[in-house]
């Protein structure tokens, strides 16, 4: 049943990046089924993200449509903290499709954050604003293909 719920969660998209699911974002921590009761623990990307309540609602709605589930509890937990290396390979591709450069696969904050354009893959890019339209994104410009784009911020516990 947990597997089924995981499949359902793959249909729950980030309300602000509708190409990527909360599973591909690495937000799903655990799924527990007891009788008809399902407890889902999610890891918030950024603590103050206003999409969290919407995600919670969408998760509940999607799960309640599944026969055999009578009650759904969604809890946000901070352990382990969400880090950007939790993104799945599929999630990284989905971000690019949306015009967002994925964060480096591993990031410790000691090395430089090299950002490739999601459209032409050039690394000849410039940071326009470390902060973007949502807490997890930055705004950049590609000097090769001349497209503005966004990048997902690397988040690591070694920062």
């Amino acid at each position, binding site marked *: 049943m947990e597997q089924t719920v995981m499949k359902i969660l793959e249909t729950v998209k980030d309300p602000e990046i509708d190409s990527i699911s909360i599973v591909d974002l690495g937000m799903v921590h655990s799924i527990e089924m007891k009788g008809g009761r399902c407890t889902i623990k999610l890891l918030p990307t950024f*603590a*103050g993200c206003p999409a969290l309540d919407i995600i919670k609602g969408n998760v509940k709605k999607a799960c309640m449509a599944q026969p055999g589930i009578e009650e759904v509890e969604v809890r946000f937990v*901070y352990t382990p*903290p969400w880090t950007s290396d939790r993104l799945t390979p599929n999630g990284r591709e989905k971000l690019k499709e949306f015009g967002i450069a994925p964060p480096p696969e591993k990031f410790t904050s000691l090395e430089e954050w090299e950002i490739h354009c999601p459209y032409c893959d050039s690394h000849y890019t410039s940071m*326009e604003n*470390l*902060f973007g339209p949502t807490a997890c994104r930055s*705004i950049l410009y590609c000097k090769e293909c001349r497209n503005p784009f966004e990048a997902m911020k690397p988040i690591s*516990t070694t*920062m």
Partner: protein
Amino acid sequence: MKQYELNTIPDEGYRQALAALLYQLADDDFILAYRGSEWLGLAPHIEEDVAFSSINQDTMGHASMIYELLASLGEGTEDELAHGRTPEERRNAIILEEVNGPGDYLIEPRYDWAFAVVRHYFYTVAKKVRMESLKQSSYGPLAEAAVKINTELYYHLLHWQTWFTQLMNAGGEARKRMEEAVSRVCDDFLGVLTLGPDGESMSRYGLIEEEAILASRWTEALKKPFNSTGVQHPPVARSLRGDGRKGEHTGDLTDALHTLSEVYRLEASATW
């Protein structure tokens, strides 16, 4: 040091010291996030508007995480804690409640950007010092929250440090106004660095390190950026207008809470 969880809190003294610390952490973030949000649409340029609102949103999220910890200790619901408490019950430092400048958000806001940069930069440095210490807190849920908050703080610090050094090095009016802001913020910044009447028991219970150690780390962290701007040492933080950790506050807090909790007071039982 042994680590405790909600259901293994050893005694009432520990619980009290923990609650006192959580109130300070949450109230500091809460009021400064509000002051920051008042800059929306008024920041020096559009990129700053975007960045600053993102930072305020994160900061409010951090306040909310800590209020949640207080709620689990039985101190009230998150909304009550954020909106329902009187100024005397607040434990934020006085410098964080100060208005952004003369005027009102809607009428002639003459906000002071130098003051905003210095206040937010100094505060972010102090918050970073605290979070690093709290990662080793004897209260497990607080240590976990600190790890999470710390990852986001990295970007806040980068942001304010850039503003601080660039404006300080700009010379002319910018430098002059920054120096005035530094001295103004320092006049009351000790309020951020203190842990209040329960400070000693906080460190005795291993909740956070001693106040003096934290304060010296703050000074140390500011030395390099200060030196790079041609100022030898960060000025000494004082506490001229009272101790917010004891519930002493100015009219600025009363006014801010009045505006902030207006909707909540209309219908406290509403969900939103």
